[in-house]
């Protein structure tokens, strides 16, 4: 039941914040809405972590996997809502923004909870449409351009995905006379599906949803959208949206693996994973725009996640899921902190930002530590997940791709450090003066860093069991 | 008892060392159809210098004053280590042939510092060149000794002295050692003791600022060093006949040879000296190779 309440809450919050034009109060409404939603999703997680999936009116279906992604969405959207308060504190009538924000989050919740794959497809499309206006929110040339590319490319991808879904449905209905697109039933019918059709379908699925999940070479919308959207939205995009659409891929992979075996799906994902890593590595080296830099790093991390699936095995899956979670945290932190810097310096161009450590001690150090976190240095948790993925690679004998992963990680680390040390160190511009920073935001940074640190040393049993349940779903363990 | 013998031998060495220098000079002059200074001239010089007052640069520090003492001290200590008049007298615990090399290096280190101490340009130039040549000479010397000790089966002085059979390896290493000896004692193909042109000086340039007693110390130390090296050559690389007589004979022979060599060949440019030293290094390696082949 919670899920319905959750969604209703979001819709309600959205509507309310649409009607109260006033920025701050709308923000408060949204925040509270998010918090309530988060509470609900925590409840759901707790229930689903047990391993028994919840079915609500044969429409929503929440098992370990969905629960895990619920948690992910809940955490980052809550944090983002909080951050938006600070980000928009000076602008008036941001009601529309908050409305879209809620719809966006709503649609993502919808994606991970709905049972019917057709509906899931639609929800993913809605995420695009809702976030389109958010990306184009600043409504200047570049923003509109980015939004246009975003919508067009994602729609194309999604449409291809629909083709894949139809193929799935075709074989299901022709082999087993299935009359609907419910995941549960498709999954049950999984082993009867015609492998060739499934393979064909899977191509379209992975390319389709992969476009939205930011896998290279379908990733091109991503840096534009991330760089042009308001910072909270960038955080949400790469923190949650990418994972949500990767969730869609996973759902289909689960079905497909029943008939064509896991390795086939894994191989395709692995291919895209490696390409994403390579693209990210080289584009990050010569990047000028800080938000684009972070966007590419998202591409990289999605690549790592899909590599986790490629390497497979319990380790690989665990690593991939855990990595998705860590990345959501760390990347949001990165966007938040660099958002602060950008607001202060008034530019995205990294060559014009110098001596940030002096101007904004807290935000800058948060950005610095977060940078080391997403670069995968211990003791931050991303190191752990990357390490797990790597382990899976070496264990299952993928020596070349694991070595490639190591190399690209090194290059990316170099690129990140190169850019950030040039931004944070050095003399501050003459006209800049060290300003006091908002305590709330600093606290937020502190909390997120703490999370990253703690997860690096010990994964709480709750999360562990949740991920375990998720991977059980993936392996089809009942 | 042994200790006293050693002391005696050391004193004897100290007393005899300048003579070798004088001898070589005399021979050289005779070969050049000159009369030359009397054989005992080195003693005269040292005593004369002792008598003189000393002038020290006011820019110099205690290094400048201390260096000659340290130089001489290390030389004397080395004299204790090498066998000279009475062959196997070496006291265990004073280390081995490598230690001799390290000791000489200590003295050189301080002389080079002293050269820099007064701020005199020539001093600096001298010490730079000195360190340059010595650092290149070191490997050759060490490896030649290495080869000899391989033949002897130990780096211990006594063992080295005891090992006495002619082998190609020994000849090669002996030759290498001799080349190094010439370099280390500032002899002609590398350096020229008799030059009076500062720019061509190597060893002497370091000492330009010295006068009086200190200079005496240094000259004595120099003679000692030459004595040590020649004794090492005689004992470790020319293995026939033991006993003082043979020793002195061989010693004088080496001096004579050196004198002849010095008058017959010309001094090299500084950077040709590099090739010279590398050549001797190569010979010493060849000695090791020969030893491996058992010849």
């Amino acid at each position, binding site marked *: 039941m919670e899920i319905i309440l959750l969604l209703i809450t979001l819709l309600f919050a959205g509507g309310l914040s649409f009607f109260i034009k006033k920025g701050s109060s709308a923000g408060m409404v949204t925040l509270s809405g998010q918090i309530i939603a988060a509470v609900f999703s925590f409840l759901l997680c707790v229930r689903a972590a047990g391993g028994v999936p919840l079915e609500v009116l044969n429409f929503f279906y929440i098992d370990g996997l969905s629960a895990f992604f619920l948690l992910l969405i809940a955490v980052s959207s809550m944090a983002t809502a909080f951050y938006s308060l600070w980000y928009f504190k000076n602008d008036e009538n941001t009601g529309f923004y908050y409305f879209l924000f809620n719809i966006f989050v709503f649609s993502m919740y919808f994606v991970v909870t709905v049972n019917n794959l057709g509906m899931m497809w639609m929800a993913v499309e809605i995420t695009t449409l809702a976030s389109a206006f958010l990306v184009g929110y600043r409504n200047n040339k570049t923003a509109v351009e980015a939004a246009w590319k975003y919508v067009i490319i994602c729609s194309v991808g999604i449409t291809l995905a629909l083709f894949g879904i139809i193929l799935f449905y075709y074989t299901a209905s022709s082999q087993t006379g299935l009359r609907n697109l419910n995941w549960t039933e498709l999954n049950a019918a999984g082993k009867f599906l015609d492998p060739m059709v499934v393979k064909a379908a899977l191509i379209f699925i992975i390319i389709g949803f992969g476009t939205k999940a930011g896998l290279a070479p379908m990733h091109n919308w991503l840096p534009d959208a991330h760089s042009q959207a308001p910072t909270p939205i960038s955080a949400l995009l790469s923190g949650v949206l990418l994972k949500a659409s990767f969730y869609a891929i996973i759902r289909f992979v689960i079905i497909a693996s029943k008939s064509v075996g896991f390795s086939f799906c894994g191989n395709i994902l692995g291919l895209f994973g490696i390409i994403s890593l390579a693209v990210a590595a080289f584009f990050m080296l010569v990047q000028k725009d800080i938000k684009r830099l972070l966007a590419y790093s998202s591409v990289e991390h999605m690549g790592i996640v899909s590599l986790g699936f490629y390497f497979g095995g319990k380790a690989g899956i665990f690593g991939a899921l855990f990595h998705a979670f860590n990345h959501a945290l760390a990347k949001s932190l990165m966007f938040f902190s660099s958002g602060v810097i950008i607001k202060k310096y008034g530019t995205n161009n990294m060559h014009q930002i110098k001596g940030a450590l002096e101007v904004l001690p807290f935000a800058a150090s948060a950005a610095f530590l977060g940078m080391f976190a997403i670069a995968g240095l211990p003791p931050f948790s991303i190191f752990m997940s990357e390490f797990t993925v790597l382990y899976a690679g070496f264990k299952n004998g993928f020596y070349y791709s694991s070595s490639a992963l190591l190399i690209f990680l090194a290059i990316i680390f170099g690129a990140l450090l190169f850019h950030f040390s040039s931004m944070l160190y050095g003399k501050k511009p003459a006209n800049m003066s060290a300003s006091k920073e908002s305590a709330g935001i600093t606290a937020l940074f502190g909390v997120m860093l703490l999370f990253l640190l703690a997860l690096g040393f010990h994964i709480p049993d709750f999360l562990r069991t949740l991920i375990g349940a998720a991977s059980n779903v993936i392996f089809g363990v009942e | 008892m042994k200790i006293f013998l050693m002391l005696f031998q050391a004193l004897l060495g100290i007393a005899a060392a300048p003579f070798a220098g004088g001898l070589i000079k005399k021979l050289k002059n005779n070969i050049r159809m000159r009369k030359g200074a009397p054989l005992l001239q080195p003693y005269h010089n040292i005593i004369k210098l002792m008598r003189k007052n000393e002038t020290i640069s*006011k820019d110099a520090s205690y290094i400048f004053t201390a260096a000659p003492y340290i130089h001489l001290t290390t030389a004397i200590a080395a004299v204790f280590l090498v066998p000279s008049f009475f062959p196997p007298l070496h006291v265990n615990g004073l280390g081995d042939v490598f230690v001799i090399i390290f000791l000489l290096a200590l003295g050189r280190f301080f002389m080079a510092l002293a050269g820099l101490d007064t701020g005199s340009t020539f001093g*600096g130039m001298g010490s730079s060149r000195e360190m340059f040549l010595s650092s290149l000479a070191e490997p050759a010397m060490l490896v030649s000794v290495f080869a000899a000790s391989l033949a002897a089966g130990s780096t211990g002085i006594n063992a080295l002295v005891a090992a006495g059979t002619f082998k190609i390896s020994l000849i090669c290493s002996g030759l290498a050692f001799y080349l190094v000896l010439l370099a280390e004692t500032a002899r002609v193909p590398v350096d020229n003791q008799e030059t009076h042109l500062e720019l061509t000086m190597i060893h002497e340039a370091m000492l330009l600022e010295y006068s009086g007693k200190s200079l005496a110390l240094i000259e004595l130390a120099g003679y000692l060093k030459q004595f040590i090296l020649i004794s090492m050559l005689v004992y470790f690389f020319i293995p026939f006949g033991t006993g003082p007589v043979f020793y002195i004979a061989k010693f004088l022979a080496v001096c004579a040879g050196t004198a002849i060599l010095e008058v017959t060949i010309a001094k090299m440019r500084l950077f040709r000296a590099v090739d010279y030293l590398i050549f001797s290094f190569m010979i010493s390696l060849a000695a090791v190779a020969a030893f491996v082949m058992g010849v």
Partner: protein
Amino acid sequence: MEGFVVDWKLSFDALSIFFGFIILLVSIPSWMYSIGYMQGLYSGGRILFAKILLLLFILTMFLVVFSANALLFLIAWELMSLLSYFLVTLDPHEEKASRAGLIYILMAHIGTAFMTAAFLIIYSYSGSFDLSAFKETCLILPLKVKTTVFLCFLVGFGTKAGLIPFHIWLPFAHPEAPSHISAIMSGVMIKIGIYGFLRFVLFTLGVEELWWGNLVLVLAALSAAGGILYALMEKDLKKMLAYSSIENIGIIMLGIGGYMIFVKMNQPLLAVFSLAAALYHIINHAIFKTLLFMGAGSILKTCGTKNMEKLGGLIKLMPVTAFCFLIGALAISALPPLNGFISEWLLLQALFYGALAGATFAKMKIFLALLAGILALTGGLAAACFVKAFGISFLAVPRSKKTETASDSGWSIKAPMIFLTALIFIFGLFAGPVFKILTGVAASVSGLNNGAAAFTFNVLSLAPQEGSGVHLNNLLLSGALVLIGIFVFSIFKVISREKSITYGKTWTCGYYSVNGRNQYTATGFSKPFRVAFSFILMPYRKMEKIRDSYYHVKSFKYEVHTKQLLNEYFYKPVINRIFRFAEWSRKLQQGSVHIYIGYIFLALVFLIIFLKRF
């Protein structure tokens, strides 16, 4: 297998304790030094920050040394690099420091990547990160895997230790760091790399083939000779010290490589001996390198420069620093009777007896003789290098205004230096007992039969092999030296009693005055070496004359630089290639949405065509 858990298992075997001791030995004086050094250089808050960082840094080093779990080791290791990076870039205004830090941590990270690979390969066989489990697994690893792992470890740990050719970060990071940090980094941190090598290659992986040892020896020789050569070219005091660290790492690795080949030549006794010698040099280098960096630091603090060409005459202005630096210089140039001499002597003995023993390995004899030669060359160059360092920066006349007014710093800077100077003497004179302990350590960790008894003739003297009548009793030797010294001194005092000493201008063959400008310079001092070794150093000169008329040259600028062979021909080109490729790849994304959709189309077509391949 649900994610990795870090378990904080620690182990305290002889090796770990030995390295823990070294960490203490260096970090306590450095801590004390830092108190005096940092005040006045940084603001109060930053000093506190630096202190906390330093504490954490030292703790992580302990963690690395004592961790009995490879994962914990890895985490602590990377943490160590990270903290030291923050310490190097302590002053956020220093652009140079941040760049140096960048190179440093990037290299460290690459090294860690290799280690990670190696660990994971072993782990995928062993299934546990426990070191003992690792050890057991390594017995059954196939040779190919073992070789891979060995090479990974060599690169990984070699990078941290600053072994040529993985050393490039070192001459950047060490000079830029605050001096006490440079001291700790050069004194201990790079030794932690050695520790990793010992722990994981020698005592976990085991020495599988002879060529492993040979490879290590060759790299070691390269590091020793190359390091000191580049050090000799430097006129920046701290950079020179950094390079000489590379040299000393090379010397240490000589001992370790010796161990590796002697094990394969089944000479357990010699192996232990050579390893112990290496350990001895580790201690010694820790002591005198820390001391020298402290000296350089106090110069930097008072004279505001670490460029030798601007120093001079400091022996009168800062006597304590000068004396300590002199002793350090003597020790590092391996001159008797100080500690550096002992360890190098031991290494020479190890090489010699190796050459003597390996009857069945004929060409090893020549190889080892060559190595001995290179060691000697290194010694000679080191002596030259430190004659230059001390002579130019402490002797003669000051070369700059600021230097003329220099003076010794406070006690918190002097005391640690004096302490370390004392240590140099102690570890030099009481070589026998120390070496006994070290052989014990080496024997116990290597599990080879304990030859400790054989190596010390009596309590005080060293003996490389029983029966070979070679003993070195350093106490005796130095006693003799002192006695002779006193003897000589008194004799000559007596002889020339009534002679007077006059103090005058430096003669310089009659040149009218000696001042800061016409003294011999560091660059001039190293000129012959630069010419002789030009095939490695590739010197080049920049000259510019500014003349106001044809006849009158107003000002004349002349610089000599040397090229870094490796940087010029390996690192820079590779990095440039990568950047150029990246620049080129930007063309793929020119902003046209059509092309982007085209990519999707192509991906689709590709998969459709190659569907059967997956």
